[in-house]
């Protein structure tokens, strides 16, 4: 035998709790609990800000709909539940009501019209209006790293994107292999990199700093470790960085042996170092490797141990990465690492 007494009283209580819970969550959304370098509600660039504005509008509408309908649901569940002293007669059978149906058809249509118009406007704002004076950068997605080319400035680098603050940068998105997606939430919505289908997006960060993100379209084994780091710098810092990046690689005789090993082993099949014989296109450009804070697309700090480990066996840091373990002897490994560490 079941007792219906306690149990039938619970659903309305739970519904009330659910409403409170949701409200609590919304309040908490602003607290430090939710702090994150990739919070979509902390825009730092115009496209992200346009999206943020639209999202607040949509959230407000959906919140109102939620409150109204949940109130009605809760009320229905409480008021019309079967009482213990029920007389067993069936309630009045109501088959429908045209006025009510019209009402709850027309009102949602109006809401949809309003939301649609707001949305269409933001689509136009973000998609159609790439600023004319934007800095041009070409982003090429690879399994599992990012290639950056500044065609006007003749700079090629990898994994760490530098852009000037306060002015727009247009990113032309290409792919060398599968689908990827460029997502730095605080700077813009995501746009995919699809082979044979160039896309364009733009950002104009307002504050200097490091902005994080990662690939957002499943591209293979190490999709999870294809991180994005966007350095937004003052104009002078950016110009200095460009200046430095456009130099050919330094030549240091102390590491000649490492350079020789690098250039005669298969490394040059994939990697390029400007000013040397290395001219591979498959892997990241290493000319200014040491100017980067991280390696392997952002997953490891660029220090001696990690660099050495990466060269020795990439799958220790990133199993499934396409760079093979070259099987270097300990001595050769040290020499090559020393050579790479001169590529500032």
């Amino acid at each position, binding site marked *: 035998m*079941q007792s219906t007494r306690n*149990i039938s009283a619970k*659903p309305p209580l739970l519904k009330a709790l659910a409403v409170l819970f949701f409200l609590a969550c919304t309040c908490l959304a602003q607290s430090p609990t*939710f702090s*994150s*370098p*990739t*919070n*979509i*509600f902390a825009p730092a660039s115009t496209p992200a800000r346009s999206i943020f504005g639209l*999202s607040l509008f*949509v959230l407000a*509408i959906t919140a109102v*709909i*939620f409150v109204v309908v*949940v109130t*009605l*649901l809760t009320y*229905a*569940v409480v008021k*019309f*539940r*079967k*009482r213990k002293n029920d007389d067993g007669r*069936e*309630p*009045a*059978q*109501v*088959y*429908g*009501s045209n006025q009510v149906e019209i009402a*709850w*058809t027309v009102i949602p249509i109006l809401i*949809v019209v309003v*939301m649609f118009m707001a*949305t269409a406007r*933001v*689509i136009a704002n973000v*998609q159609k209006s790439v600023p004319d004076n934007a800095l041009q950068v070409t982003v090429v997605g690879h*399994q599992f790293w990012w290639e950056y080319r500044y065609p006007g400035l003749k700079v090629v680098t990898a994994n760490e994107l530098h852009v000037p603050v306060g002015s727009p940068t247009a990113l032309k998105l290409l792919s060398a292999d599968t*689908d990827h997606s460029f*997502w730095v*939430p605080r700077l813009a*919505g*995501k*746009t*995919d990199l*699809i*082979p044979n*289908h160039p*896309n364009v997006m733009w950002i104009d960060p307002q504050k200097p700093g490091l902005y*994080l993100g*990662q690939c957002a*379209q*499943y591209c293979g084994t190490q*999709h*999870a*470790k294809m991180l994005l780091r966007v350095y937004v710098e003052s104009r002078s810092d950016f110009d200095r960085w460009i200046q430095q990046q456009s130099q050919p690689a330094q030549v240091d005789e102390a590491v000649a042996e490492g350079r020789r090993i690098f250039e005669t082993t298969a490394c040059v099949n994939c990697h390029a170092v400007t000013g040397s014989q290395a001219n591979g296109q498959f892997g990241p450009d290493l000319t200014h490797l040491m100017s980067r804070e991280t390696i392997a697309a952002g997953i490891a700090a660029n220090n001696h141990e990690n660099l050495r480990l990466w060269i020795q066996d990439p799958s220790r840091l990133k*199993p499934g990465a396409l760079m093979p373990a070259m099987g270097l002897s300990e001595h050769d490994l040290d020499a090559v690492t020393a050579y790479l560490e001169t590529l500032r």
Partner: protein
Amino acid sequence: MATDLITWPETQEADATFRPFVDRLHEWVTTVDHKRLGVMYILYALVFLLIGGIEATIMRIQLSAAHKDFVSPQVFNRMFTMHGTTMIFFVAMPLVFGLANYLVPLMIGARDMAFPRLNAFSFWLTAFGGILLYFSLIGANGLYGAGNAPDVGWFAYAPLTSHTFSPGHSTDFWTLGLLVSGFGSIGTAINIIATILCMRCPGMTLGKMPLLVWLNLVMAGMVILAVSPLSAAQIMLLIDRYLGGHFFDTQAGGSATIWMHFFWIFGHPEVYVLVIPAFAIASEIIPVFSRKAIFGYPVMVAATVAIGFIGMSVWAHHMFTVGMSSNANTFFVLSTMAIAVPTGIKIFNWLATMWGGKVEFKSPMLFCAGFLFQFLVAGLTGIMLSAAPFDWQLGNSYFVVAHFHYVIVGGILFCLFAAFYYWYPKMTGRMYNEPLGKLHFWLFLIGFHLTFDFMHIPGLLGMPRRIYTYEPGRGWDSWNFIVTIGVVFQGLGILVFAANLIWSYFRGKVAGNDPWDAWTLEWSTNSPPPAYNFAAIPSVKSRRPLWDLKHPEDPDWKYE
């Protein structure tokens, strides 16, 4: 309680006399009876539900903390591929088809489906497809051990699925398994349409069919139009992989986005194929447990047909980030927002059905109440996603994962649980255990909300989907941990559910024909129904034939 309408004296099942197990097995394997096929579909789906749940659990353990090492990236990528593919094609679809198979002929007063042998053939195709997919675990080793279960994601985007990026045969097991079961789905859909349109009992015009029947008709129509594009795309993929074709070969000028279009032309209607039967279940259970007729039957039909049509035109809202023109993006925003209108109408009509009624919260109704609340939330997060610029942030993140699990688990699965409890007495002749049913509900409700409410947050904080691990310091850690905890409660709920089903089969109270005092034709025959369903084909005069019989002074046909 209910008037026992006996169409034939209560007889025992024919196997009251002992028959060898092999004989009984042979009977089931060769059956063309829609009820038995329905039960087989359902049992098949339950097995894969457990397997899919294990796959999900493995993923959640791996993601419960940053940089966890529970499984390798290769295994994780196979897990999310198999979990998605299994749950959609070998859990949800068989459950939908199984229930349709079982209930539709009974509800329209027919003796079986229109094409019983095609019915059986379709079931075995579906079953074989699932086996083929899972055979990849043993059979798919290709070059350099790059085999094993498919790891291309359940929507298998090109060019990741080309031979270059997916050597070995794992992708082919995905393709073939789904191709085969897709043909089974089309066969069942043909059957459902022909049955509903041609075999209704006398007096049952289209306007007098139970809503479940109407909605399954719309669902079957969508299967015919939606599964075929997937089959076509998969044939093209096979041509690419085996005959050197270039359909999706971007090196030869092919297009990766055309696969996306073809896939989502299937993929979006597919989710309506899954949810419309859930609506059907709610439309049968809520009236009975509110003791009122469904509010606005014609509008419910019209709204569902509208959802069916509009649902075929929204597919590219899965592609807002791929760089379509702003005109294309705008169109798909409009169509997607438009579909919220008929969907909302349905929620209001269910609410209005409860309004003024006498709602009894037995297990079926508890799950339907959960469905109403959760489907509302899921619809609202869907509206957020339909605003394309908002989707440029939310898309491909855990927000989307939370949204669609809210629909599929919080909406569809909850309705399916409700259906289990509601029709279990009809299918087995026994009542399930009510306190266990309620325990299942509360455990699962808590687990569901722990997991899927909190799952929205990492999405809002920038966590993309399909990643086997994540960086600490992004603020995702604690949320992922809470999400994983919910799995425990859901698992317990499922265990209670399974225990209830099994225990009640042997020890449940005998149910009788009509334990719920319901109004549609399946409750007029025995529990379980005999092979021929009805002693005499019934005739009906209204949408609730049993209400008319129980209330001769106040029959429905006077008011409809």
